[in-house]
């Protein structure tokens, strides 16, 4: 392994260290002058001749988390050992990939590492685009992003829009999470003193308020159960909706997610799997029969029978992502939804077809389901998904 020959102008170790820090910064680490100084201090504690020690020291000092931990050795070698500076942030073309009904395609999304081009530094890029999509910074580029997010999800299957979908889902889940009760409850470590109980107890001590009682407003967050249709008619939306599910699940530990086509499968553990490769493998196993027919009624029946007792209570919002094309008779679906509604707080149906012009819920399934829904909302663009947030705050 050959050490990098630095140009003559980079004179001392201080400058090299500064260069190294900026190399890291270009690769997406959040480091600056403070870190340069720390790095130089840290290097005084290791023997200058020990190559390995210097690497370990800088690694301990500069790495902020596990994702960088895995990349750091490569970054280090590419800078100090002449493997050339690798800029990870490749320029992404915004050409539109259309997707066919192959599960392997969305596996790539679930596991960003599997795509070597997007793996390094791609994160920073994606972050930017997501921020632009939110319209936080008002640069010109935002207009283009706007256009992209308005397009129907069927045409948009690139990494950026998947990231945006995930982010939209996380915001939605957070909008539901912050719910505090209006009433106070006695609590050991409450924020406020419970005057009534304190005074009552003080009688026993001759009027001295020796024991202090407290009260607080308990958190009563709503939780989400999402049922996502992955049948043939929904294939075109499947990747984005899977990204959406992943966002929902990762935003809150209580969220539960299911996929259905002709069967119903619980996918929460797979979506929550931190080993992304394994998650993709598990999901593709589960999605056997992916892109087949739909049996919404059957799926809801099965959900009612096996899962809802545990997953659904009076503070649960059930999200159904489906186009409503169903093979079984409509009455069954209506009956099952009515049953589910008695148990759940709200049932919200997100329908990608709803935003179409002249859409009317004439599909048998949809017509039967409508009376039992609290909301029937369009979900054909990422904008539409993001725009659900105010709707959700009302729930």
């Amino acid at each position, binding site marked *: 392994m050959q050490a990098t020959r630095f140009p003559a102008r980079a004179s001392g170790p201080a400058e090299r260290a500064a260069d190294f820090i900026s190399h890291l910064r270009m690769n997406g680490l*959040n480091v600056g002058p403070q870190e340069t100084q720390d790095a130089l201090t840290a290097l005084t*504690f290791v*023997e200058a001749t020990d190559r390995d020690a210097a690497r370990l020291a800088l690694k*301990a000092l500069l790495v902020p988390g*596990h994702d960088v931990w895995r990349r750091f050795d490569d970054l280090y070698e590419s800078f100090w050992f002449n493997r050339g500076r690798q800029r990870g942030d490749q320029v992404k073309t915004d050409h539109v990939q259309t997707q066919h009904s192959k599960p392997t395609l969305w596996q790539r999304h679930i596991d960003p590492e599997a795509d070597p081009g997007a793996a390094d530094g791609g994160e920073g890029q994606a972050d930017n685009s997501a921020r632009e999509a939110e319209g936080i910074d008002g640069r010109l580029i935002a207009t283009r992003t706007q256009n992209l997010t308005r397009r129907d999800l069927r045409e948009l299957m690139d990494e950026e829009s998947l990231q945006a979908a995930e982010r939209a889902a996380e915001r939605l889940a957070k909008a539901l999470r912050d719910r505090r009760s209006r009433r106070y409850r006695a609590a050991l470590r409450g924020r406020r003193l419970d005057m009534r109980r304190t005074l009552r107890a003080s009688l026993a001590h001759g009027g001295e308020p020796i024991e202090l009682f407290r009260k607080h407003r308990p958190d009563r967050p709503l939780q989400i159960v999402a049922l996502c249709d992955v049948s043939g008619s929904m294939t075109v939306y499947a990747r984005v909706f899977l990204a959406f599910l992943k966002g929902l699940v990762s935003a809150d530990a209580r969220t539960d997610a299911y996929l259905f086509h002709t069967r119903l499968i619980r996918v929460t553990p797979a979506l929550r799997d931190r080993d992304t490769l394994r998650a993709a493998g598990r999901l593709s196993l589960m999605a056997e029969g992916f892109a087949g027919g739909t049996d919404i009624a059957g799926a809801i029946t099965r959900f009612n029978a096996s899962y809802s007792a545990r997953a659904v209570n009076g503070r649960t919002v059930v999200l159904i992502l489906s186009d409503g094309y169903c093979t079984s008779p409509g009455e069954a679906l209506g009956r099952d939804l009515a049953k589910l509604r008695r148990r759940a707080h709200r049932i919200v149906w997100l329908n990608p077809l709803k935003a179409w012009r002249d859409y009317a819920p004439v599909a048998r399934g949809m017509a039967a389901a409508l009376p039992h829904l609290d909301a029937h909302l369009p979900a054909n663009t990422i904008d539409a998904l993001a725009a659900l947030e105010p709707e959700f705050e009302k729930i």
Partner: protein
Amino acid sequence: MTASGYKALQLDLAEAAYVASDSLAMAMYLSQKLGRPLLLEGPAGVGKTDTAKTLARVKDTRLIRLQCYEGLDASQAIYEWNYQRQLLALRASETESEDAVFTEKYLLKRPLLEAITQEQAPVLLIDEIDRADEAFEAYLLEILAEGQATVPELGTITATARPMVILTSNGTRELSDALRRRCLYSYIDYPDRETELAILHARSPGIEARLACQIIHTVQAIRREDLEKVPGIAEMLDWAAALSGLGINDLSEDPSTVAATLICLLKTAADRDAIPAEMLARIVGKAA
């Protein structure tokens, strides 16, 4: 000093029966030299908490432990006024002014304040920081970065001796950037075969070499399966202890007993089902 600084620490740790990887030893060494807290991440049961315990033993100092949980607040972690004593003192003397009861005498020190008021620098273990709320991280920042805590009625209490701080996280929640920037970082993963063998020998010296090899091979193979709770080092040690307690010298000898002892490794019903007896026999067969 024969070895460079971090190697010496690694040897010290090894003497206290803790096998630390190079990167972990370096991170611990630097955290002492730079006086910065050390953040350890990694799966459950790879010895994150044990790191702090061993360090306290090596440095021959106190270990102060703060176990984090949801809803942990400043009065549990930093300090609290002993309200009842204050009240009694005021009643008893009648003349005493209000200021007299806001002194250290009436201060209940919780782990963080206790850690910075020790004569000899202790090891402060903040366990599972990801379980505490975001708000709690903000309290921590002052103590970790400046080594001081502020009690409004008393003023700022500055550390007499900077504690060696170790934070652990299981990654159930993303920690704030501010906290990460102030910490050194090390990730502890499941060890490779040689390291795990070394750990087993360090912790249970009496175990036979052949059995130890079999145990490590089996555990490593089980870790590769699709499990809900992947067995950590602690589970491996439990299992080894169970096997030697039952007097088993060879895993292939008594399959049914060995299968029964798997409860030490697999902690959920689903995981038990994932490793049926035939599969275990196959894994053990390869090990032998």
